[in-house]
């Protein structure tokens, strides 16, 4: 399954690893913030409706 | 006292300042070095420990004026000085807050920048160790300098000039420690000297800083 990467295995694997890790962090951070902001906005609008 | 520390940390985080900016400055200085001395990598590696120390020192230096100036300008310092907190405690807390917000991030970032300067990986440990040991002295000495210049509008440059000579011993032994460590030489002497400087300044300088603040508030 795994292709033979020869003597450059560490280079290639670390490049893939680092890139995917950065992408994952970016996506996770975007989603987390999206959820957080969305929740607080909903809470805020709900509270306002409740108040009248 | 804790309240003061927390407030200062909060302000630093809130201003988006503290952490990020000092770091970015450090990064930029280290990046500029190759531009200015030229990019031969052997030359770079040989001056790397020195450059990292110099960059960290300058990044610390630039954030010094925040220590007291804002509090002085908006009158907080007058009010703190007439509060129940001892002035020696106040300056120590200020130094601690400076170290946490400005110096610690530099220590953590140093290995990554060392990479850009082609420093061999074995040297990272020594870079971090020497910075970790030396930067508290930079914060404490800097606090003294900030206290000296607190009355002056835009005393930034004067502050640098007063503080830099005081930084020289720390820089010499810190960079020496890093250099020797990187080259695998004996590190005991600079290590002891650096630790000595740090502990001595932490123990003694807050009294001087407090006295100087008192004078400046008159």
């Amino acid at each position, binding site marked *: 399954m795994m292709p033979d990467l020869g003597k450059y295995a560490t280079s290639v694997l670390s490049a893939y690893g680092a890139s995917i890790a950065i992408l994952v962090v970016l996506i996770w951070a975007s989603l987390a913030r999206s959820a957080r902001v969305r929740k607080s906005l909903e809470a805020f609008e709900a509270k306002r409706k409740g108040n009248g | 006292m804790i309240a*003061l520390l927390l407030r200062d940390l*909060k302000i630093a985080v809130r201003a988006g300042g503290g952490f990020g900016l000092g770091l970015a400055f450090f990064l930029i200085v280290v990046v500029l070095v190759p531009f200015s001395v030229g990019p031969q990598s052997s030359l770079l590696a040989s001056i790397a420990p020195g450059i990292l120390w110099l960059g960290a020192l300058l990044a610390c230096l630039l954030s010094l004026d925040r220590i007291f100036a*804002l509090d002085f300008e908006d009158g*907080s*310092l*007058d009010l703190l000085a007439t*509060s129940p907190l001892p002035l020696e405690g106040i300056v120590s807390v200020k130094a601690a807050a400076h170290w946490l917000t400005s110096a610690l991030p530099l220590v953590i970032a140093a290995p990554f920048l060392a990479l850009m300067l082609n420093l061999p990986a074995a040297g990272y440990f020594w870079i971090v160790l020497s910075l970790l040991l030396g930067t508290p002295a930079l914060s404490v000495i800097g606090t003294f300098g900030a206290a000296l210049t607190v009355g002056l509008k835009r005393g930034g440059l004067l502050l640098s000039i007063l503080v830099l000579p005081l930084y020289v011993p720390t820089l010499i032994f810190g960079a020496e420690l890093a250099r020797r460590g990187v080259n695998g030489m004996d590190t005991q002497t600079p290590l002891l000297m650096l630790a000595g400087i740090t502990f001595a300044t932490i123990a003694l300088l807050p009294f001087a800083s407090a006295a100087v603040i008192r004078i400046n508030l008159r």
Partner: protein
Amino acid sequence: MVLKVKDLAVSRGGLTVLEGLNFTLSPGQALVLRGPNGSGKTTLLRTLAGLQPPAAGDIVGDPETIAYAAHADGLKPTLSVRENLAFWAQVFGTSDLSPAIDAFNLGTLLDRAAGALSAGQKRRLGLARLKVTGRQVWMLDEPTVSLDTSSVEQFAHTIRDHLKNQGSALLATHIDLGFEATVLDVSPYKAKLRDLPVLEEGLL
């Protein structure tokens, strides 16, 4: 008696500004300093608050009982009104903010950053700080600057309250504050220019 001043002389920028001051401040008393611009009221207050040493004479009193409010309010623009007040409460070891908030009508501003207040709102926050210090002697330098009439009224009310609880206050101001107070005009104490501050004359 919480503060007693004997033969006090105060100086600013190396020159004596006022001299021969004698007065006492008792619990429950308010003393208003008056005098034209530049007569030395600010200098006197700073000296009494312990921020600068007297040029001559004695100040009898415990600096630990004094809360000083200067022209600048010592507010952190990035912290909210509540955080600003809470900080000073912690420094002075008190914990209840609500009397201060009520006294200066800050309830609606609590979560606002102090930097986004108008001039008068800032001033109100600065004055509210006094209440959280829990100290007995208030020293105020032109406290009502920028305040509108209803806020001045609130301020006078707060002072009256403070005096009733055996507090005392020393204020420098140019306008009428609307409460009963002893008035001390500082102009008669203006320092004569007879001696040089440091060196003797004819020293050459």
